[in-house]
Protein backbone atom coordinates (compact mmCIF):
# COMPACT_ATOMS: atom_id res chain seq x y z
CA UNK A 1 0.00 0.00 0.00
CA UNK A 2 1.35 3.39 -0.91
CA UNK A 3 2.09 6.04 1.66
CA UNK A 4 -0.50 8.69 2.53
CA UNK A 5 2.21 11.35 2.40
CA UNK A 6 5.51 11.02 0.60
CA UNK A 7 8.22 13.69 0.43
CA UNK A 8 11.42 13.06 -1.53
CA UNK A 9 14.30 15.51 -1.32
CA UNK A 10 11.77 18.20 -0.50
CA UNK A 11 13.03 21.76 -0.13
CA UNK A 12 10.91 24.69 1.00
CA UNK A 13 11.92 28.34 1.02
CA UNK A 14 10.15 31.26 2.60
CA UNK A 15 10.97 34.90 2.03
CA UNK A 16 14.18 33.94 0.19
CA UNK A 17 15.66 31.72 2.88
CA UNK A 18 15.52 27.94 3.04
CA UNK A 19 13.27 26.54 5.77
CA UNK A 20 14.40 22.95 5.26
CA UNK A 21 15.92 21.06 2.38
CA UNK A 22 16.45 17.52 1.11
CA UNK A 23 13.80 16.17 3.44
CA UNK A 24 12.46 12.62 2.93
CA UNK A 25 9.25 11.84 4.83
CA UNK A 26 6.68 9.09 4.57
CA UNK A 27 3.45 8.86 6.51
CA UNK A 28 1.65 5.50 6.40
CA UNK A 29 -2.11 5.06 6.64
CA UNK A 30 -3.41 5.18 10.20
CA UNK A 31 -0.16 6.47 11.67
CA UNK A 32 -0.12 9.01 14.53
CA UNK A 33 2.97 11.16 14.01
CA UNK A 34 4.20 14.01 16.20
CA UNK A 35 5.91 16.90 14.39
CA UNK A 36 8.47 18.38 16.76
CA UNK A 37 11.30 20.89 16.73
CA UNK A 38 12.25 24.38 17.90
CA UNK A 39 10.29 27.50 16.94
CA UNK A 40 10.87 28.49 13.34
CA UNK A 41 12.12 25.03 12.30
CA UNK A 42 9.34 24.70 9.71
CA UNK A 43 6.81 22.47 11.48
CA UNK A 44 3.77 24.51 10.43
CA UNK A 45 5.36 24.96 7.00
CA UNK A 46 5.32 21.17 6.66
CA UNK A 47 1.55 21.12 7.21
CA UNK A 48 1.06 24.05 4.83
CA UNK A 49 3.03 22.21 2.17
CA UNK A 50 0.75 19.18 2.53
CA UNK A 51 -2.28 21.47 2.15
CA UNK A 52 -0.89 23.03 -1.00
CA UNK A 53 -0.57 26.44 0.67
CA UNK A 54 3.21 26.34 0.45
CA UNK A 55 5.15 25.75 -2.76
CA UNK A 56 7.88 23.17 -3.08
CA UNK A 57 11.24 24.59 -4.23
CA UNK A 58 12.84 21.27 -5.09
CA UNK A 59 12.11 17.57 -4.75
CA UNK A 60 8.71 15.94 -4.90
CA UNK A 61 5.67 15.66 -2.69
CA UNK A 62 2.66 13.37 -2.93
CA UNK A 63 -0.37 13.67 -0.68
CA UNK A 64 -3.07 10.97 -0.88
CA UNK A 65 -1.70 9.95 -4.26
CA UNK A 66 -1.72 13.41 -5.87
CA UNK A 67 0.08 16.74 -5.80
CA UNK A 68 -0.38 18.73 -2.56
CA UNK A 69 -3.65 20.69 -2.58
CA UNK A 70 -5.48 18.44 -5.05
CA UNK A 71 -6.92 16.20 -2.36
CA UNK A 72 -7.82 19.06 -0.04
CA UNK A 73 -11.36 17.74 0.43
CA UNK A 74 -9.97 14.59 2.04
CA UNK A 75 -7.74 16.45 4.52
CA UNK A 76 -8.86 17.87 7.86
CA UNK A 77 -6.82 20.83 9.11
CA UNK A 78 -6.70 22.68 12.40
CA UNK A 79 -4.69 25.92 12.11
CA UNK A 80 -2.48 27.21 14.87
CA UNK A 81 -3.64 29.27 17.86
CA UNK A 82 -7.22 30.06 17.31
CA UNK A 83 -9.36 31.02 20.19
CA UNK A 84 -12.66 32.83 20.33
CA UNK A 85 -13.29 35.50 22.93
CA UNK A 86 -16.57 36.03 24.71
CA UNK A 87 -17.85 38.52 22.16
CA UNK A 88 -18.07 35.87 19.41
CA UNK A 89 -21.77 35.09 19.43
CA UNK A 90 -21.78 32.02 17.22
CA UNK A 91 -22.60 28.51 18.44
CA UNK A 92 -19.88 25.87 18.48
CA UNK A 93 -22.16 23.75 16.32
CA UNK A 94 -22.26 26.40 13.58
CA UNK A 95 -18.46 26.46 13.50
CA UNK A 96 -18.34 22.68 13.19
CA UNK A 97 -20.80 22.89 10.28
CA UNK A 98 -18.45 25.25 8.43
CA UNK A 99 -15.91 22.41 8.29
CA UNK A 100 -18.42 20.47 6.22
CA UNK A 101 -19.56 23.02 3.63
CA UNK A 102 -18.27 26.47 4.71
CA UNK A 103 -16.41 27.04 1.46
CA UNK A 104 -19.45 26.38 -0.72
CA UNK A 105 -21.07 29.41 -2.36
CA UNK A 106 -24.60 30.30 -1.45
CA UNK A 107 -26.57 30.91 1.69
CA UNK A 108 -28.36 28.21 3.62
CA UNK A 109 -31.95 29.39 3.76
CA UNK A 110 -34.02 28.76 6.87
CA UNK A 111 -36.41 25.88 7.05
CA UNK A 112 -34.49 23.52 4.79
CA UNK A 113 -35.42 19.89 5.20
CA UNK A 114 -33.89 18.44 2.04
CA UNK A 115 -32.00 15.16 2.00
CA UNK A 116 -28.66 16.93 1.83
CA UNK A 117 -29.58 19.19 4.75
CA UNK A 118 -30.59 16.30 6.99
CA UNK A 119 -27.51 14.29 6.00
CA UNK A 120 -25.37 17.30 6.91
CA UNK A 121 -27.15 17.68 10.24
CA UNK A 122 -26.58 13.99 11.03
CA UNK A 123 -22.90 14.26 10.13
CA UNK A 124 -22.45 17.31 12.39
CA UNK A 125 -24.20 15.53 15.28
CA UNK A 126 -21.92 12.54 14.72
CA UNK A 127 -18.61 14.45 14.78
CA UNK A 128 -19.73 16.45 17.83
CA UNK A 129 -20.48 13.15 19.59
CA UNK A 130 -17.14 11.69 18.44
CA UNK A 131 -15.16 14.43 20.17
CA UNK A 132 -17.46 14.39 23.19
CA UNK A 133 -18.63 17.98 22.73
CA UNK A 134 -22.37 17.31 22.91
CA UNK A 135 -22.83 19.10 26.22
CA UNK A 136 -21.62 22.48 25.00
CA UNK A 137 -21.95 22.44 21.19
CA UNK A 138 -25.04 24.66 21.35
CA UNK A 139 -23.37 27.29 23.54
CA UNK A 140 -21.69 30.32 21.93
CA UNK A 141 -18.11 29.26 21.16
CA UNK A 142 -16.71 32.29 23.01
CA UNK A 143 -18.23 31.02 26.25
CA UNK A 144 -16.52 27.62 25.97
CA UNK A 145 -13.24 26.88 27.76
CA UNK A 146 -9.99 26.45 25.83
CA UNK A 147 -10.27 22.66 25.94
CA UNK A 148 -13.90 22.74 24.82
CA UNK A 149 -13.08 25.11 21.94
CA UNK A 150 -10.24 22.80 20.86
CA UNK A 151 -12.54 19.76 20.80
CA UNK A 152 -15.10 21.67 18.70
CA UNK A 153 -12.36 22.77 16.29
CA UNK A 154 -11.17 19.17 15.97
CA UNK A 155 -14.78 18.24 15.21
CA UNK A 156 -14.74 20.95 12.50
CA UNK A 157 -11.59 19.41 11.00
CA UNK A 158 -13.24 15.96 11.09
CA UNK A 159 -16.50 17.06 9.47
CA UNK A 160 -15.67 15.85 5.96
CA UNK A 161 -14.47 12.43 7.23
CA UNK A 162 -10.84 13.12 6.28
CA UNK A 163 -8.24 10.42 5.63
CA UNK A 164 -5.46 12.74 6.74
CA UNK A 165 -5.73 15.03 9.77
CA UNK A 166 -3.25 17.89 10.19
CA UNK A 167 -3.29 19.49 13.64
CA UNK A 168 -1.12 22.56 14.29
CA UNK A 169 -0.36 22.89 18.01
CA UNK A 170 -3.73 21.65 19.25
CA UNK A 171 -2.32 21.28 22.78
CA UNK A 172 -1.03 24.84 22.94
CA UNK A 173 -2.51 26.86 25.81
CA UNK A 174 -4.33 23.86 27.29
CA UNK A 175 -3.77 22.74 30.88
CA UNK A 176 -2.16 19.34 31.55
CA UNK A 177 -5.37 17.30 32.01
CA UNK A 178 -6.78 18.76 28.78
CA UNK A 179 -3.51 18.11 26.92
CA UNK A 180 -3.78 14.46 27.95
CA UNK A 181 -7.46 14.12 27.07
CA UNK A 182 -7.08 15.81 23.66
CA UNK A 183 -4.03 13.59 22.90
CA UNK A 184 -5.96 10.47 23.77
CA UNK A 185 -8.97 11.67 21.74
CA UNK A 186 -6.75 12.13 18.66
CA UNK A 187 -5.18 8.70 19.17
CA UNK A 188 -8.62 7.09 19.44
CA UNK A 189 -9.77 8.79 16.19
CA UNK A 190 -6.59 7.64 14.51
CA UNK A 191 -7.01 4.01 15.63
CA UNK A 192 -10.77 3.62 15.23
CA UNK A 193 -11.12 5.36 11.88
CA UNK A 194 -7.68 4.64 10.46
CA UNK A 195 -7.02 8.37 9.99
CA UNK A 196 -3.40 9.40 9.44
CA UNK A 197 -2.59 12.17 11.91
CA UNK A 198 0.29 14.67 11.81
CA UNK A 199 0.24 16.72 15.00
CA UNK A 200 2.57 19.68 15.54
CA UNK A 201 3.63 20.17 19.16
CA UNK A 202 6.35 22.02 20.98
CA UNK A 203 6.32 19.63 23.94
CA UNK A 204 6.40 15.90 23.28
CA UNK A 205 5.65 14.84 26.84
CA UNK A 206 1.84 14.91 26.86
CA UNK A 207 1.96 12.90 23.60
CA UNK A 208 4.66 10.35 24.42
CA UNK A 209 2.40 7.41 25.23
CA UNK A 210 0.13 8.02 22.23
CA UNK A 211 2.46 8.64 19.29
CA UNK A 212 3.61 5.99 16.82
CA UNK A 213 6.44 8.09 15.52
CA UNK A 214 7.99 11.53 15.70
CA UNK A 215 9.50 13.74 13.01
CA UNK A 216 11.93 16.21 14.44
CA UNK A 217 12.71 19.35 12.43
CA UNK A 218 15.81 21.42 13.22
CA UNK A 219 18.46 23.39 11.37
CA UNK A 220 16.89 22.81 7.97
CA UNK A 221 16.74 19.03 8.29
CA UNK A 222 14.36 16.41 9.62
CA UNK A 223 14.87 13.16 11.52
CA UNK A 224 12.16 10.56 11.88
CA UNK A 225 11.64 7.51 14.07
CA UNK A 226 10.02 6.35 17.27
CA UNK A 227 10.27 8.79 20.18
CA UNK A 228 12.76 6.43 21.83
CA UNK A 229 14.99 6.53 18.73
CA UNK A 230 14.78 10.24 17.99
CA UNK A 231 14.60 11.99 21.32
CA UNK A 232 18.02 10.89 22.50
CA UNK A 233 21.16 12.82 23.33
CA UNK A 234 23.01 11.43 20.29
CA UNK A 235 20.31 11.95 17.66
CA UNK A 236 19.35 15.46 18.74
CA UNK A 237 22.99 16.53 19.19
CA UNK A 238 23.72 15.37 15.65
CA UNK A 239 20.60 17.14 14.35
CA UNK A 240 21.40 20.40 16.08
CA UNK A 241 25.15 20.10 15.58
CA UNK A 242 25.49 21.18 19.17
CA UNK A 243 25.61 19.57 22.57
CA UNK A 244 22.05 18.69 23.47
CA UNK A 245 21.26 16.39 26.35
CA UNK A 246 18.08 14.39 26.81
CA UNK A 247 17.26 13.44 30.38
CA UNK A 248 14.53 11.06 31.44
CA UNK A 249 12.97 12.01 34.73
CA UNK A 250 11.72 9.48 37.25
CA UNK A 251 8.11 10.15 36.11
CA UNK A 252 9.01 9.24 32.53
CA UNK A 253 8.93 12.80 31.17
CA UNK A 254 11.73 13.74 28.79
CA UNK A 255 13.72 16.90 29.33
CA UNK A 256 15.82 18.28 26.49
CA UNK A 257 18.63 20.43 27.84
CA UNK A 258 20.65 22.93 25.86
CA UNK A 259 18.34 23.00 22.85
CA UNK A 260 18.90 26.21 20.88
CA UNK A 261 15.94 28.61 20.40
CA UNK A 262 13.56 26.94 22.79
CA UNK A 263 15.26 26.49 26.14
CA UNK A 264 12.29 26.09 28.43
CA UNK A 265 9.69 24.25 26.42
CA UNK A 266 10.45 20.55 26.65
CA UNK A 267 9.52 19.08 29.98
CA UNK A 268 8.66 22.46 31.34
CA UNK A 269 5.68 22.14 33.61
CA UNK A 270 2.91 24.58 32.78
Amino acid sequence: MSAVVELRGATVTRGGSTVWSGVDIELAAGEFVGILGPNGAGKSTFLELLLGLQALQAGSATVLGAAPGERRQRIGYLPQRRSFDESVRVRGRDLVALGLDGARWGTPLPGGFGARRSAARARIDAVIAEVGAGAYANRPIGECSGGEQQRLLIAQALARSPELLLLDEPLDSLDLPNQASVSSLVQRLCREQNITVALVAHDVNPLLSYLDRVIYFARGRAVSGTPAEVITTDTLSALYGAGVEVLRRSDGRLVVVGQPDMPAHHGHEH
Partner: protein
Amino acid sequence: MNPSFSINPVSDLNQLLQYPFMVNALQAGTIVAVIAALVGWFVVLRRETFVCHTLSVMSFPGASGAALAGLPLAPGYFLFAVGGALAIAFGSRVGGRRSAMQESAVVGTVGAVALGLGFLFLSLYGGILESVETLLFGSFVGISAGQVQTLLVVAALAAAVLAVIGRPLFYASVDERSANADGVPVRALSVIFLVLLGLAVAAIAQIVGVLLTFALLVAPAATAQLITARVRLSLALALALAVSETWAAMTLSYFTNVALGFAVTTIALALYAVARAVRELRG
Protein backbone atom coordinates in the same frame (compact mmCIF):
# COMPACT_ATOMS: atom_id res chain seq x y z
CA MET B 1 -54.41 69.44 9.36
CA ASN B 2 -51.60 68.73 11.78
CA PRO B 3 -51.09 65.03 12.45
CA SER B 4 -52.03 64.05 15.97
CA PHE B 5 -51.32 60.68 17.52
CA SER B 6 -54.29 58.81 18.93
CA ILE B 7 -54.85 55.48 20.59
CA ASN B 8 -56.70 54.35 17.46
CA PRO B 9 -54.10 52.60 15.25
CA VAL B 10 -56.36 52.74 12.18
CA SER B 11 -56.65 56.51 12.37
CA ASP B 12 -52.90 56.76 13.01
CA LEU B 13 -52.16 54.63 9.96
CA ASN B 14 -54.54 56.69 7.86
CA GLN B 15 -52.84 59.87 8.99
CA LEU B 16 -49.41 58.35 8.25
CA LEU B 17 -50.38 57.36 4.75
CA GLN B 18 -52.46 60.39 3.76
CA TYR B 19 -49.57 62.15 1.99
CA PRO B 20 -47.67 60.53 -0.93
CA PHE B 21 -44.36 61.78 0.49
CA MET B 22 -45.00 59.74 3.62
CA VAL B 23 -45.78 56.60 1.61
CA ASN B 24 -42.50 57.08 -0.25
CA ALA B 25 -40.72 57.63 3.04
CA LEU B 26 -42.11 54.46 4.58
CA GLN B 27 -41.18 52.43 1.50
CA ALA B 28 -37.69 53.89 1.43
CA GLY B 29 -37.28 53.41 5.19
CA THR B 30 -38.30 49.77 4.97
CA ILE B 31 -35.88 49.03 2.13
CA VAL B 32 -33.11 50.81 4.00
CA ALA B 33 -33.85 48.87 7.20
CA VAL B 34 -33.73 45.52 5.43
CA ILE B 35 -30.40 46.20 3.76
CA ALA B 36 -28.94 47.75 6.92
CA ALA B 37 -29.83 44.68 8.95
CA LEU B 38 -28.37 42.20 6.44
CA VAL B 39 -25.12 44.06 5.82
CA GLY B 40 -24.85 45.27 9.43
CA TRP B 41 -25.09 41.72 10.74
CA PHE B 42 -21.83 40.93 8.95
CA VAL B 43 -20.28 44.27 10.02
CA VAL B 44 -20.80 43.35 13.68
CA LEU B 45 -19.54 39.81 13.13
CA ARG B 46 -16.42 41.07 11.30
CA ARG B 47 -15.84 43.88 13.83
CA GLU B 48 -15.75 46.45 11.05
CA THR B 49 -17.85 49.08 12.79
CA PHE B 50 -15.06 51.68 12.51
CA VAL B 51 -14.92 51.12 8.74
CA CYS B 52 -18.70 51.38 8.65
CA HIS B 53 -18.62 54.72 10.47
CA THR B 54 -15.95 56.10 8.13
CA LEU B 55 -17.91 55.04 5.06
CA SER B 56 -20.97 56.87 6.35
CA VAL B 57 -18.81 59.99 6.71
CA MET B 58 -17.97 59.61 2.99
CA SER B 59 -21.53 60.75 2.26
CA PHE B 60 -20.60 64.30 3.31
CA PRO B 61 -18.05 64.92 0.50
CA GLY B 62 -20.32 62.81 -1.72
CA ALA B 63 -23.25 65.13 -1.28
CA SER B 64 -21.29 68.40 -1.33
CA GLY B 65 -19.20 67.21 -4.29
CA ALA B 66 -22.33 66.34 -6.26
CA ALA B 67 -23.81 69.75 -5.44
CA LEU B 68 -20.61 71.43 -6.61
CA ALA B 69 -20.64 69.46 -9.86
CA GLY B 70 -24.30 70.28 -10.39
CA LEU B 71 -25.36 66.64 -10.19
CA PRO B 72 -28.13 65.01 -8.17
CA LEU B 73 -26.87 64.04 -4.73
CA ALA B 74 -27.41 60.27 -5.01
CA PRO B 75 -24.55 59.55 -7.49
CA GLY B 76 -22.23 61.55 -5.23
CA TYR B 77 -23.16 59.45 -2.23
CA PHE B 78 -22.59 56.17 -4.07
CA LEU B 79 -19.38 57.28 -5.78
CA PHE B 80 -17.69 58.45 -2.60
CA ALA B 81 -18.86 55.57 -0.42
CA VAL B 82 -17.66 52.95 -2.89
CA GLY B 83 -14.43 54.89 -3.54
CA GLY B 84 -13.81 55.02 0.21
CA ALA B 85 -14.49 51.30 0.50
CA LEU B 86 -11.94 50.52 -2.22
CA ALA B 87 -9.36 52.88 -0.67
CA ILE B 88 -9.75 51.11 2.67
CA ALA B 89 -9.75 47.62 1.13
CA PHE B 90 -6.54 48.16 -0.82
CA GLY B 91 -4.83 50.61 1.54
CA SER B 92 -5.05 48.13 4.40
CA ARG B 93 -2.89 45.58 2.68
CA VAL B 94 0.77 45.21 3.45
CA GLY B 95 2.58 42.83 1.14
CA GLY B 96 -0.71 41.38 -0.03
CA ARG B 97 -1.99 40.59 3.46
CA ARG B 98 -4.60 42.37 5.52
CA SER B 99 -2.91 44.23 8.36
CA ALA B 100 -5.04 45.23 11.34
CA MET B 101 -2.71 48.09 12.25
CA GLN B 102 -2.62 49.55 8.73
CA GLU B 103 -6.37 49.09 8.40
CA SER B 104 -7.05 51.15 11.49
CA ALA B 105 -4.64 53.89 10.33
CA VAL B 106 -6.03 53.92 6.77
CA VAL B 107 -9.64 53.99 7.96
CA GLY B 108 -8.93 56.92 10.27
CA THR B 109 -7.08 58.82 7.55
CA VAL B 110 -9.77 58.20 4.94
CA GLY B 111 -12.37 59.53 7.40
CA ALA B 112 -10.38 62.70 8.06
CA VAL B 113 -9.77 63.30 4.34
CA ALA B 114 -13.48 62.78 3.68
CA LEU B 115 -14.44 65.49 6.18
CA GLY B 116 -11.81 67.85 4.75
CA LEU B 117 -12.98 67.29 1.18
CA GLY B 118 -16.58 67.75 2.24
CA PHE B 119 -15.83 71.18 3.70
CA LEU B 120 -13.71 72.11 0.67
CA PHE B 121 -16.54 71.23 -1.74
CA LEU B 122 -19.02 73.06 0.45
CA SER B 123 -16.97 76.25 0.52
CA LEU B 124 -16.29 76.09 -3.25
CA TYR B 125 -19.97 75.51 -3.87
CA GLY B 126 -20.73 78.66 -1.91
CA GLY B 127 -24.47 78.16 -1.96
CA ILE B 128 -26.50 76.52 0.74
CA LEU B 129 -26.46 72.76 0.53
CA GLU B 130 -30.08 71.73 1.29
CA SER B 131 -29.25 72.41 4.83
CA VAL B 132 -26.30 70.80 6.46
CA GLU B 133 -28.57 69.69 9.27
CA THR B 134 -30.65 67.57 6.90
CA LEU B 135 -27.50 66.14 5.36
CA LEU B 136 -26.21 65.10 8.77
CA PHE B 137 -29.38 64.07 10.55
CA GLY B 138 -31.65 63.00 7.74
CA SER B 139 -35.10 63.89 6.58
CA PHE B 140 -37.83 61.92 4.91
CA VAL B 141 -39.78 64.84 3.56
CA GLY B 142 -38.22 64.99 0.15
CA ILE B 143 -37.97 61.36 -0.96
CA SER B 144 -39.23 60.90 -4.51
CA ALA B 145 -40.63 57.77 -6.11
CA GLY B 146 -37.47 57.72 -8.25
CA GLN B 147 -35.29 57.60 -5.15
CA VAL B 148 -37.32 54.71 -3.81
CA GLN B 149 -36.66 52.85 -7.06
CA THR B 150 -32.92 53.54 -6.87
CA LEU B 151 -32.92 52.25 -3.31
CA LEU B 152 -34.78 49.14 -4.35
CA VAL B 153 -32.24 48.40 -7.10
CA VAL B 154 -29.29 48.87 -4.73
CA ALA B 155 -30.98 46.76 -2.07
CA ALA B 156 -31.80 43.97 -4.51
CA LEU B 157 -28.24 43.99 -5.79
CA ALA B 158 -26.78 43.85 -2.28
CA ALA B 159 -29.16 41.07 -1.23
CA ALA B 160 -28.33 39.06 -4.36
CA VAL B 161 -24.58 39.38 -3.75
CA LEU B 162 -25.03 38.39 -0.10
CA ALA B 163 -27.11 35.39 -1.12
CA VAL B 164 -24.24 34.15 -3.30
CA ILE B 165 -21.34 34.84 -0.91
CA GLY B 166 -23.24 34.40 2.38
CA ARG B 167 -21.83 31.11 3.64
CA PRO B 168 -18.15 31.58 2.69
CA LEU B 169 -18.33 35.19 3.96
CA PHE B 170 -19.63 33.90 7.29
CA TYR B 171 -16.81 31.33 7.35
CA ALA B 172 -14.17 33.98 6.57
CA SER B 173 -15.68 36.34 9.15
CA VAL B 174 -15.64 33.99 12.16
CA ASP B 175 -12.75 31.69 11.31
CA GLU B 176 -10.46 33.32 8.75
CA ARG B 177 -7.53 30.89 9.01
CA SER B 178 -9.61 27.77 8.52
CA ALA B 179 -11.59 29.40 5.73
CA ASN B 180 -8.40 30.38 3.93
CA ALA B 181 -6.98 26.86 4.24
CA ASP B 182 -10.31 25.51 2.98
CA GLY B 183 -9.98 27.48 -0.25
CA VAL B 184 -12.32 30.39 0.59
CA PRO B 185 -11.06 33.50 -1.27
CA VAL B 186 -10.81 35.45 1.99
CA ARG B 187 -9.19 38.58 0.54
CA ALA B 188 -11.51 38.90 -2.44
CA LEU B 189 -14.50 38.45 -0.13
CA SER B 190 -13.30 41.22 2.17
CA VAL B 191 -13.03 43.63 -0.79
CA ILE B 192 -16.45 42.60 -2.12
CA PHE B 193 -17.97 43.03 1.30
CA LEU B 194 -16.47 46.51 1.78
CA VAL B 195 -17.86 47.66 -1.59
CA LEU B 196 -21.23 46.23 -0.61
CA LEU B 197 -21.00 48.07 2.69
CA GLY B 198 -20.17 51.29 0.81
CA LEU B 199 -23.30 50.87 -1.34
CA ALA B 200 -25.49 50.14 1.65
CA VAL B 201 -24.12 53.07 3.60
CA ALA B 202 -24.71 55.46 0.69
CA ALA B 203 -28.29 54.25 0.39
CA ILE B 204 -28.97 54.54 4.11
CA ALA B 205 -27.27 57.93 4.54
CA GLN B 206 -29.75 59.47 2.11
CA ILE B 207 -32.56 58.64 4.49
CA VAL B 208 -31.28 58.82 8.06
CA GLY B 209 -28.36 61.19 7.41
CA VAL B 210 -24.60 60.90 7.50
CA LEU B 211 -24.04 60.74 11.24
CA LEU B 212 -26.74 58.29 12.11
CA THR B 213 -26.37 55.72 9.35
CA PHE B 214 -24.11 53.93 11.69
CA ALA B 215 -26.89 53.39 14.25
CA LEU B 216 -29.19 51.62 11.82
CA LEU B 217 -26.42 49.40 10.47
CA VAL B 218 -24.84 48.39 13.74
CA ALA B 219 -27.40 48.57 16.55
CA PRO B 220 -30.08 46.10 15.34
CA ALA B 221 -27.46 43.53 14.35
CA ALA B 222 -25.55 43.93 17.62
CA THR B 223 -28.79 43.64 19.60
CA ALA B 224 -29.80 40.50 17.69
CA GLN B 225 -26.40 38.86 18.22
CA LEU B 226 -26.63 39.61 21.94
CA ILE B 227 -30.01 37.94 22.14
CA THR B 228 -29.16 34.73 20.28
CA ALA B 229 -26.10 32.87 19.01
CA ARG B 230 -28.17 30.94 16.45
CA VAL B 231 -27.09 32.22 13.05
CA ARG B 232 -30.39 32.25 11.16
CA LEU B 233 -32.42 33.36 14.14
CA SER B 234 -30.12 36.29 14.85
CA LEU B 235 -30.21 37.36 11.19
CA ALA B 236 -34.02 37.23 11.20
CA LEU B 237 -34.10 39.10 14.50
CA ALA B 238 -31.78 41.81 13.14
CA LEU B 239 -34.15 42.24 10.18
CA ALA B 240 -37.23 42.44 12.37
CA LEU B 241 -35.55 44.91 14.74
CA ALA B 242 -34.29 47.20 11.99
CA VAL B 243 -37.64 47.33 10.21
CA SER B 244 -39.70 47.88 13.36
CA GLU B 245 -37.23 50.45 14.72
CA THR B 246 -37.43 52.37 11.45
CA TRP B 247 -41.24 52.31 11.39
CA ALA B 248 -41.43 53.36 15.02
CA ALA B 249 -38.94 56.19 14.43
CA MET B 250 -40.84 57.42 11.35
CA THR B 251 -44.12 57.39 13.24
CA LEU B 252 -42.56 59.24 16.16
CA SER B 253 -40.90 61.72 13.85
CA TYR B 254 -44.11 62.29 11.88
CA PHE B 255 -46.29 62.96 14.89
CA THR B 256 -43.81 64.96 16.98
CA ASN B 257 -41.44 66.62 14.48
CA VAL B 258 -38.45 65.04 16.22
CA ALA B 259 -35.58 64.61 13.70
CA LEU B 260 -35.70 61.12 12.16
CA GLY B 261 -32.08 60.31 12.89
CA PHE B 262 -32.54 61.17 16.53
CA ALA B 263 -35.64 59.00 16.76
CA VAL B 264 -33.90 56.02 15.07
CA THR B 265 -30.79 56.18 17.25
CA THR B 266 -32.74 56.62 20.47
CA ILE B 267 -34.98 53.63 19.82
CA ALA B 268 -32.09 51.48 18.54
CA LEU B 269 -29.90 52.40 21.51
CA ALA B 270 -32.71 51.73 23.99
CA LEU B 271 -33.30 48.22 22.61
CA TYR B 272 -29.57 47.48 22.57
CA ALA B 273 -29.27 48.68 26.18
CA VAL B 274 -32.15 46.45 27.26
CA ALA B 275 -30.67 43.39 25.52
CA ARG B 276 -27.29 44.13 27.05
CA ALA B 277 -28.71 44.65 30.55
CA VAL B 278 -30.65 41.38 30.37
CA ARG B 279 -27.48 39.54 29.36
CA GLU B 280 -25.36 41.12 32.08
CA LEU B 281 -27.97 40.37 34.73
CA ARG B 282 -28.21 36.74 33.65
CA GLY B 283 -24.41 36.55 33.99
